[in-house]
């Protein structure tokens, strides 16, 4: 956790509302309904009708929530229909609603990057991204970077170099390193350090992460 955000030790903890959006209880009922864009428009129409205050919503404004509404998220090349609320984070949608628990949540505040996913190949923190902001983008998670049963070169290099201990930061670390190689196939160690400078590893695996990523870059280069 961030120094500035850790409440002083002798203070009561702030109540945590994270990871328990009310809509989740309804997911069993709504899961698999397969509602897509047309369904969204229909339900939005109903909601606008229900709330007179926004009945005159002008063009170029789309109203959502607060009730759950259906969206389609493109994740790892597949379309997933699900129900979200405006407050549902991308991390919650992935982990709780889609059961894709490879993406980890540690701080839930943007500090540690263990929840790193790609939005159109750009690494972001899924805990600070609303799921609705992922609509229309390609989301890639740790489950999606490997092809079938074959590990991504960065994953394979992490195994060879023993670049993990408890493993909790590892999915985020791999996503950051793999994103770096997408952008810069020939990084220096300084580039790797910079790319993972937001990934907190309390086990201290950094030297092995640097070595593994440089090794993976070499492997990719020799294949290309």
């Amino acid at each position, binding site marked *: 956790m*961030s*120094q*500035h*955000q*850790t*409440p*002083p030790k002798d*203070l*009561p903890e*702030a*109540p945590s*509302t*994270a990871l328990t*959006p*009310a809509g989740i209880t309804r997911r069993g009922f709504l899961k698999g309904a397969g509602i897509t864009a047309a369904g969204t428009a229909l339900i939005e129409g109903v909601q606008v009708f229900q*709330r007179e*205050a*926004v009945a005159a*919503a*002008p*063009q*170029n*404004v*789309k*109203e*959502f*929530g*607060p009730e759950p509404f259906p969206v389609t998220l493109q994740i790892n090349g597949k379309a997933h229909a699900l129900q979200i*609320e*405006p*407050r549902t*984070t991308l991390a919650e949608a992935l982990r709780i609603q889609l059961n894709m628990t490879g993406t980890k949540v540690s701080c*839930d*505040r*943007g*500090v*540690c*990057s263990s929840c*790193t996913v790609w939005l159109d190949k*750009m*690494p*972001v*923190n899924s805990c*600070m*991204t*609303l799921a*609705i*902001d992922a609509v229309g983008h390609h989301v890639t998670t740790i489950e999606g970077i490997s092809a079938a049963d074959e590990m991504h070169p960065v994953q394979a290099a992490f195994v060879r170099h023993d670049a993990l201990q408890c493993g909790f930061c590892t999915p985020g670390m791999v996503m*950051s390193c793999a994103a770096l190689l997408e952008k810069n196939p020939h990084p220096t160690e300084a580039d790797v350090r*910079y*790319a993972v*400078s*937001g990934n*907190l590893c309390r086990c201290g695996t950094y030297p092995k992460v640097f070595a593994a990523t440089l090794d993976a870059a070499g492997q990719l280069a020799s294949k290309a």
Partner: protein
Amino acid sequence: MNSFALADCSTVEAALSQLKDGAVVKAGGVDLLDRMKNGTDTPARLVNIRNIAALRGIHPTDQGLTIGALTTLAEVADDPTIRSQYTLLADACGHAATPHIRNMATLGGNLLQQLQCWYYRSADFQCLRKGKDICFAFSGLNQYHAIMDYGGCPSVAPSSGAVALLALDASVELTSAARGKRTVAIKDFYVQPDANPHRFHVMADDELLTAIHIPKLAPGTRSAYQKYGEKESHDWAIADAGILLEMDGNICRRAVVAMGAASPVVRRSHEAEAVLTGKPITPETARAAGKASMTNAMPLSMNGYKVQLFPVAIYRTVLLAAGQMDRDPSAAG
């Protein structure tokens, strides 16, 4: 997080039409969602401006440079023109927060982010800034708080971008449906806590911050920003320095020394600037400027270390700007 409705807007006009009845703007969401997760902010309705394409981008103009409010910190930091000409802004945006946050955080949101004081960020503490008449930091835990100009609230200015933009004499463009556009200089944008503890800046509730304007620089201008933190990344500055030097050969014609983590509002040290103006930049003048910057320091019970750290930050950053020293490997980011 509380439950809320969200109005997703694709144009500035659409977003302006939604700024009423307590609706709150969301850009990247990094600062706002943090406050909502903490329970200090519970808006019933968000106006999502993240998808307004017209507010994104970096455009050279006759007067200098215009940056759309939704341009991300990463885009600012990577822009070749900003890197070469407005180096301290690229430095500030490239060393704020973490790489992934910089991919999400917008420059407008960076300037408008609220205080990081941990009492302020906790729903359990109602202080001066939340309408009560008490500050918990003076007698409580204040190691990251202000050392000067703090009046009744020693929380520090959190925005790295604002330090750079203050040094660059930049201004923000504010737009409302009722009154159109107005431009406010960064030096006049933020409100001192003693002037009004309930306002951080002069932007009205029905206004959007639409752009940042930076004037052309005088020939011979060199600049740099460095941030010192407790950790390499992950965190706000404990000391920082934004330095701009207008050089005439070896002599510094005009110097700007800007600081963020010293006071509640980004400030310039006129004492440090006076030391550098009209003199050559040398390790001696840079060190004297750092020392002068602490003339008015009044540290709290736990942050005396900042009075040692700021002069070092200013000394090293003056020399970095002048091209006489490399970037400090112990600076954060």
